[in-house]
């Protein structure tokens, strides 16, 4: 069974059709890159999969571990193991990062019948996992993303991923806005979380992230469709030749 199967997915926002028939299959243990120019629909696809209420699915189907994803509320999708690292993480003033992480962790544990952790036990866990993104534990006591720099927000997304151990992690432009050191840290973090039980989808329009996290498959998105799929060498080809030739071929 595939982890994720997307068949002919169509979706609109505010009455505008954005996704026009996306097909995509993702197996366990795989790393996929979705590339494409700004406005091609990459974030839309990510948010539709995660269940953002602003988007309406107008056609097609999505199976997550064989089950209809659209029958699940966004929080149920998360509990089933779907994770989205946001392109633009929001700030939540007054809610401490550690309390937020613990609530998320315990909610997911509860839904799996796993063990919930009290604040002290959770602190041990989070201090272990925070090393993955080389973040200062002082960030745990601050409000979620409040006053974080762009790069700190992106690292905080990966910290959430490290805590929640999702089956499918979609990283929406986690590389943009990162300097080269931060990029390396984030990439190392993501690599350390790879396993044969999960899969990672990286949404990006730069090849540079793919030097650090090497994909098994590269997809090119254009005008709401995946118009080309290849191996990691496709990313290099796009870097060299741009997108025009793919568009022309599509």
């Amino acid at each position, binding site marked *: 069974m595939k982890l994720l199967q997307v068949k002919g997915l169509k979706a609109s926002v505010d009455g505008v059709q954005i996704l026009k028939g996306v097909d995509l299959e993702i197996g366990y243990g795989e790393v996929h890159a979705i590339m494409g120019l700004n406005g091609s629909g990459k974030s839309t696809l990510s948010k539709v999969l*995660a*269940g*953002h*209420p*602003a988007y309406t699915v107008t056609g097609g189907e999505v199976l997550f571990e064989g089950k209809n994803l659209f029958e699940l*509320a*966004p*929080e149920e*999708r*998360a*509990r089933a193991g779907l*994770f*989205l690292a*946001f392109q633009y*993480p*929001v700030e*939540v*003033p*007054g*809610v*401490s990062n550690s*309390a*937020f992480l613990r*609530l*998320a962790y315990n*909610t*997911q544990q509860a*839904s799996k019948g796993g063990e919930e952790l009290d604040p002290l036990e959770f602190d041990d866990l989070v201090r272990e996992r925070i090393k993955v993104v080389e973040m200062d534990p002082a960030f745990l006591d601050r*409000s*979620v993303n409040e006053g974080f720099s762009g790069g700190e927000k992106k690292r905080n997304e990966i910290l*959430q991923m490290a805590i*929640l151990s999702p089956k499918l992690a979609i990283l929406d432009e986690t590389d943009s806005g990162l300097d080269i050191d931060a990029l390396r840290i984030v990439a190392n973090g993501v690599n350390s979380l790879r396993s044969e039980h999960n899969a990672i989808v990286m949404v990006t329009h730069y090849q540079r992230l793919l030097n650090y996290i090497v994909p098994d498959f590269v997809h090119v998105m254009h005008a709401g469709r995946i118009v080309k799929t290849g191996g990691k060498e496709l990313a290099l080809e796009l870097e060299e030749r741009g997108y025009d030739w793919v568009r022309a071929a599509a």
Partner: protein
Amino acid sequence: MSSTLQQLVNQPYRHGFVTDIETEVVPKGLSEEVIRLISKKKEEPEWLLEFRLSAYRHWLTLEAPDWAAVSHPPIDFQEIIYFAQPKPKKQLASLDEVDPELLRTFEKLGVPLHEQKIMAGVAVDVIFDSVSVTTTYKAKLAEIGIIFCSLSEAVKEHPELVRQYLGSVVPPSDNFYAALNSAVFTEGSFCFIPKGVKCPMDLSTYFRINTEGSGQFERTLIVAEEGASVSYLEGCTAPQFDTNQLHAAVVELVALDNAEIKYSTVQNWYAGDESGVGGIYNFVTKRGLCRGVNSKISWTQVETGSAITWKYPSCVLLGDGSVGEFYSVALTNHMQQADTGTKMVHVGRNTRSTIVSKGISAGRSSNSYRGLVKIGPKAMGARNYSQCDSMLIGDQCSANTYPTVEVQNENGVVEHEASTSRIGEDQMFLFASRGIGQEEAVSMIINGFCRDVFMHLPLEFAVEATKLLGLKLEGSVG
């Protein structure tokens, strides 16, 4: 704002039932005759009748204030019932004589009246419409000299104390609604903590308006003598009627040298329905006088109910080194209007005050903070810190802050911080995408926002307040 967000804030009111109980009412309308009748029914001394009548005569010369950021049709004071009490009215020797229907009402509200069932360590005075139903733990408190009873009982048993302090903080001429209250107040609580006594339990009053068309004009008076301290809790609900009901209370606190009074309120009067029909007009004057040196008065309020709230619990810091505090959460939803805040009047030297106000607006409500910090000419070394934060849920509500500062000596230090934030769809989606359900998400966001206030509530009240805010907001965020 999405429909899930809407649903989450739009939880029905749970205390909106009416108790079917025979009630004795004085005919509606206000006149000297009605006042004399109330006074007579309450078997009051002559001086109190005079207090009422002079307040009434003064009230006749006043106009209802219009400076608050609230709007409502003019109130017809002749349409209000000024006195309603459950029948039969006789001295109750014990709780067993309380009408069982009434006991059931309070059980339903989560306020059991039997002492053994009452929240451990809280003495409760319960006011139903115009009459005090019962005061628990009274005898126990009396052993250490604490008087905790209904105001009418205090008038009978301790007239000299009541006469000394009644109106000493909020004079009948203070404002329109204070004058009205002074003329027609029917019930309230009286607490007196004698010199050197630390009250061993929280004292609590629970107010309930039951009769349609009746007003509630309670009057609470708390006096802490030298070195005394007390923590007082106030809770309120009302049934759901389509007509607006007036609640115009006066609360007076007096703290002598080194005394400390902590006054906490969780206000959940009926707020009216989604389109703004019905609900309580909550026009309240609350003021504390720090009369003695190093005395301290602290107001903590969680205001979630009422169609209109007009309320500014204040502190007059007369004694040198005295401290005033105001911690407030005001939540408005649907068509609710709240204009609330505080006044800190620094008179003595080295007086200090802290204001923390958190306004949460949802629906089409309007929520204003209005504050005055006044540092008088002799208040050398006075300091104030104010923080006013607003949170908006959805995009049809409004929040305003009107802070006023008057500093009359160069020595005073006044600091003010303010912020406005919005709970939006993207925040809610962040929580959802991490597996967290809406109710928990809202509760976490709101609690985070209100943390600086909740930490000042007694524990049980803090738990109740947290739940209440969650309920009030259910359906409004998404």
